[in-house]
């Protein structure tokens, strides 16, 4: 009975408090952390997690999971890279093809979940495995190795690079445009959730799908759209990775799906759906990026890395939790 009371507080408040605490902590213990350059390295790292995490957050608010969100990033890059390398066509063609592929995977995920009624956790676990295998198998088949070939000589590389993987300098600080894209996607998601009709529907299908259906919300369409949105954002980061690094390892991306979920949950999204917001998810991604790099900036023994990360995560969650509870008093 006390849950609803607690939920009166906004989801991102706690995450913000936790983020601040962690930020101050690393400022204190890691001298190398205290520079604009470091901050933007952290922001860049956060953005590569955060862009997909926004989509995963929306999906979780809508009551579903997507475990294939990590590997689809790699699939996106591979489809583009392998296709264009094999057939020698302009990279824009491959990028478009990759987009279609990703949207199709997202649609398939959503359609299977809605059609069969099987939990999305299982369906997307299946697509996760399949994509992982296909990434490896196809890359091996096409290039004979487990990484894609360098595509920087193929037509369209530089225009695509400037869209997806450019950076600019302010003083001696490098700012990657992914950070700006991230902010844009978060703003858009926030707008949708708070102000658009679609946002209303997302909260409703996550909070009580049957009730939502009963008042005429198009549950199936809303949920499938969310899966497609996750795939789209995965494609976007996939493009970034490809055009920043030129080659991709076919085995990459595995494990990131949990980082997205962690970011969303640390940011105040309810695992069971129906509650959360985009800014919270962004702060969650920032907390993760800050922690994982902060430990390195602080120069701590990497053998203990995971232990530090775990303690940080627990602290963030606890601070978040109590801050929110306190805020609802």
């Amino acid at each position, binding site marked *: 009975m006390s*849950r*609803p*009371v607690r*939920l*009166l507080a906004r989801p991102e408040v706690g995450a913000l408090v936790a983020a601040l605490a962690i930020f101050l902590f690393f400022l204190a213990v890691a001298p190398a952390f205290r520079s604009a350059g470091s901050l933007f390295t952290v922001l860049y790292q956060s953005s590569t997690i955060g862009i997909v995490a926004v989509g995963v957050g929306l999906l979780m608010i809508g009551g579903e999971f997507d475990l294939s969100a990590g590997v689809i990033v790699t699939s996106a890059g591979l489809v583009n890279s392998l296709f264009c390398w094999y057939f020698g066509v302009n990279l824009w063609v491959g990028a478009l093809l990759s987009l279609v592929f990703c949207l199709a995977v997202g649609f398939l995920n959503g359609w299977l979940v809605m059609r069969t009624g099987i939990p999305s956790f299982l369906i997307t676990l299946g697509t996760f495995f399949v994509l992982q295998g296909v990434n490896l198998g196809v890359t091996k088949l096409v290039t004979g190795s487990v990484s894609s070939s360098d595509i920087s000589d193929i037509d369209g590389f530089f225009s695509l690079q400037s869209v997806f993987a450019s950076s600019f300098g302010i003083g001696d600080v490098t700012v990657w445009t992914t950070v700006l894209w991230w902010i844009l996607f978060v703003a858009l998601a926030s*707008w*949708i959730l708070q*102000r*658009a*009709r*679609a946002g*209303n*529907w997302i*909260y*409703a299908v996550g*909070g*009580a799908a*049957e*009730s*939502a*259906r*009963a*008042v*005429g*919300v*198009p549950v199936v369409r809303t949920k499938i759209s969310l899966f497609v949105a996750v795939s789209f954002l995965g494609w976007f980061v996939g493009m970034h990775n490809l055009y920043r690094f030129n080659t991709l390892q076919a085995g990459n991306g595995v494990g990131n799906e949990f980082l997205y979920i962690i970011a969303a949950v640390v940011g105040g999204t*309810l695992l069971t759906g*129906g*509650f959360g917001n985009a800014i919270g998810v962004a702060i969650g991604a920032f907390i993760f990026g800050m922690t994982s790099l902060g430990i390195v900036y602080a120069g701590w023994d990497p053998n203990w890395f995971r232990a530090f990360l775990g303690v940080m995560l627990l602290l963030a969650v606890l601070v978040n939790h109590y801050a929110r509870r306190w805020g609802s008093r």
Partner: protein
Amino acid sequence: MIELVGVGKSYGPIRALHDVSLKAEAGSVTCVLGDNGAGKSTLIGIMSGLHPHTSGSLLVDGKPTVFSSPREALDLGIATVYQNLAVIPLMEVWRNFFLGSELTAGRFPLAGMRIKEMKRVADAALRDMGIVLADIDQPIGTLSGGQRQGVAIARAIHFGAKVLILDEPTAALGVKQSGAVLKHVAAARDAGIGVVFITHNPHHAYLVGDHFVILKLGSAVLDARRGEVTLEELTAQMAGGDELEQLAHELGRG
């Protein structure tokens, strides 16, 4: 407007409804009464598109129809207040009120909602029902059971179109709120809406009903117009006796 002819519905091996006919007419109130488990909610579900019937036929404006989703029923002007599926607990009251029928600033899918207006309208509609909330922004899960039901009813009445279906709307409500609901039912009827009103309370039914159907174990055992039945008969049919007086007698009070 909407008519059921010999409709039946089974959940797997369980036959919840069998050969029931019913008609909702413009400007009249059809009351459905019956014991617990008689199949009233099941009947409602069929008319509102929640689940399809397994036999018989459903006519909307004379045309046989099978709804595949509540959206279709809503689009045909059939608004429903459900017994169990009232609201989304974690969502704000005003969002719940407008859910599925949001006021938007344009037809563009990402068009903003007219939030201020929505809050104002929701608040007014609730006050109309006798529900005064300190904060229209609070999650609806923090309201009391009756208040929640009230929001669902206010919503259906506000958006009420040609047919309004109410599944035990007064069960969780106090005397005053029940009265408000009954007044709204009467107002809807007078506005030419066809109302289907489900209740356990023969008194409530008799106050507004034009037509009475009593279900028993999934079949209709009484089907009468207002003139053909008295409150006493209705009560007797429902309880198999003179109800309150009888009970008072048994309990030795009164």
